[in-house]
């Protein structure tokens, strides 16, 4: 645990000096103005957004898996991200003049409603196979995605759409990433609620027995998920499967007691995204592989592995 933390800190520090523009600690100490500008306008915001996005999206996945009692549910596989994108697009069409906060708010509403719809369907559905559930979610998400794409073509907004599709940290600069800070207090709230989420994960009856209001805990959890997802889509773009793989790997080793695994999930989420991002920066230097692609490829690979592993257990 400690060594991972050290790795995260070292890598985070190193990542500040990886990029097309040469930047070294010496220049910073010497007080070079240009160096400081690059540092403050581009490198630091990029690092901060990686850390926040990586940890908050992973936490969202953890919360969703706990609440749905299904390992395969995440902002990607439940369609939350697709709903957030649809919300953003609708806000651009209907409230073109509105500021980013209003747009984010509309995206939150869509993401919340969509995820809630998914959870309700999940509740009702008779066939409780754990693999079947995320497939429904992905299908739902794709339908919503098609509607979004259709609207985007119709209103000539396909350009802005693509920015939300694939996560990209290279555009994270001063003035573009600040909204991500919204996720920080939400992570703190998630930690405060951690025990309640674990109890809700034991099912409605057990939660009631322990004097926990099941519904309100579920709504709180989904609201956190919706806000984080919307903010992430609006700033970074989508980091597919991140909320699926990180919590799954962490809980595989450390169990589901959220108080215990929530900080770990946050740390590993940040570390994972950071590694992917640094890799993307150096792999085809001086060009970059967008983070959405790196995370997506690794993420879907791990997802497939988890599916296969799961199926084997049944046989």
């Amino acid at each position: 645990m400690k060594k991972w933390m050290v790795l995260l800190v070292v890598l985070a520090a190193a990542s500040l000096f990886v990029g097309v523009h040469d930047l070294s600690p010496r220049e910073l100490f010497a007080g070079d103005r240009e160096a400081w500008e690059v540092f403050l306008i581009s490198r630091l915001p990029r690092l901060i957004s990686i850390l926040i996005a990586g940890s908050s999206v992973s936490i969202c996945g953890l919360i969703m898996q706990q609440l749905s009692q299904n390992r395969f549910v995440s902002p990607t596989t439940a369609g939350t991200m697709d709903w957030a994108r649809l919300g953003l697009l609708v806000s651009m069409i209907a409230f073109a003049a509105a500021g980013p906060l209003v747009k984010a708010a509309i995206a939150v509403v869509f993401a919340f409603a969509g995820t809630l719809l998914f959870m309700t369907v999940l509740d009702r559905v008779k066939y409780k196979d754990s693999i079947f559930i995320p497939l429904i979610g992905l299908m739902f998400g794709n339908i919503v995605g098609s509607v979004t794409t259709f609207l985007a073509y119709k209103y000539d907004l396909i350009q802005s759409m693509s920015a939300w599709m694939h996560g990209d940290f290279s555009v994270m600069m001063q003035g573009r990433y600040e909204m991500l800070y919204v996720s920080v207090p939400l992570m703190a709230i998630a930690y405060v609620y951690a025990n309640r989420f674990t109890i809700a994960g034991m099912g409605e009856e057990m939660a009631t027995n322990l004097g926990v209001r099941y519904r309100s805990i579920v709504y709180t959890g989904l609201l956190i998920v919706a806000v984080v997802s919307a903010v992430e889509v609006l700033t970074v773009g989508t980091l597919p499967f991140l909320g699926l793989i990180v919590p799954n790997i962490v809980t595989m080793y450390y169990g589901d007691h959220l108080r215990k695994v929530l900080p770990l999930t946050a740390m590993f989420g940040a570390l994972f995204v950071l590694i992917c991002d640094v890799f993307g920066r150096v792999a085809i230097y001086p060009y970059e592989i967008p983070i959405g692609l790196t995370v997506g490829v690794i993420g879907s690979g791990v997802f497939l592995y988890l599916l296969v592993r799961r199926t084997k257990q049944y046989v």
Partner: protein
Amino acid sequence: MVEVKQVLKRYGGKTVIDRVSLSVPRCKLTSLIGPNGAGKSTLLSMMSRLIPKDGGEIWIEGKEIARYRTEELAKKISILKQSNHIAARLTVNELVSFGRFPYSRGRLTRQDRDYVREAIRYMELEPLQDRYMDELSGGQRQRAYIAMVLAQDTDYIFLDEPLNNLDMKHAVQMMKVLRKLVDELGKTIVMVMHDINFASCYSDYMVALKDGEVVCEGDVSSIMRDEVLRGIYDLDVRVQTIENQRICVYF
């Protein structure tokens, strides 16, 4: 004191519990018996506010159940359903600790830890306490749930088929533990029982339900009779006394 008065439950026009009244004797082990679909589990769920009732009143220690805050009620009654299957990977110790949630709201005090340790000891789970629930056998898991209920430290414990999925040995063990809870700790236990003979050997009081109504209630000797059981189950049964226990032969 738990008192059920004229309680009613309907599912889509069909009455599953029809004006049932019942008072649960204190510090006794009470079994709810009756054929499938008689409404035993439904009644138990209403008595523990898991599902709302459509009429009547349920009084728990001088207060109607609906007027309790759910947090407050969690310190008075605990309920275990038969379908307890927790997907979350928790260790036995973690699970039992959650039994203290109504008191600690998640921040365990030293006193809470004492309760947890005591509950684990009582259920003889010490060697297993750091194991994950999904690594345990059915009987061990059931014991862990009971330990959680013990840590919750309520006067009333409601159990829905606590012997479900247990083999003979573990079923007997479980019933002995429940008996101890009543005799040593003064708990009041109400449980839904399918096995009439287990109910006969271990309960103090029996309540028979049929078609959503209480058909008869009383101590074991008054229920475990040929004509009474025949009436409840519509089956030609005979009750025999073997080693001072009334055993129903129904094969």
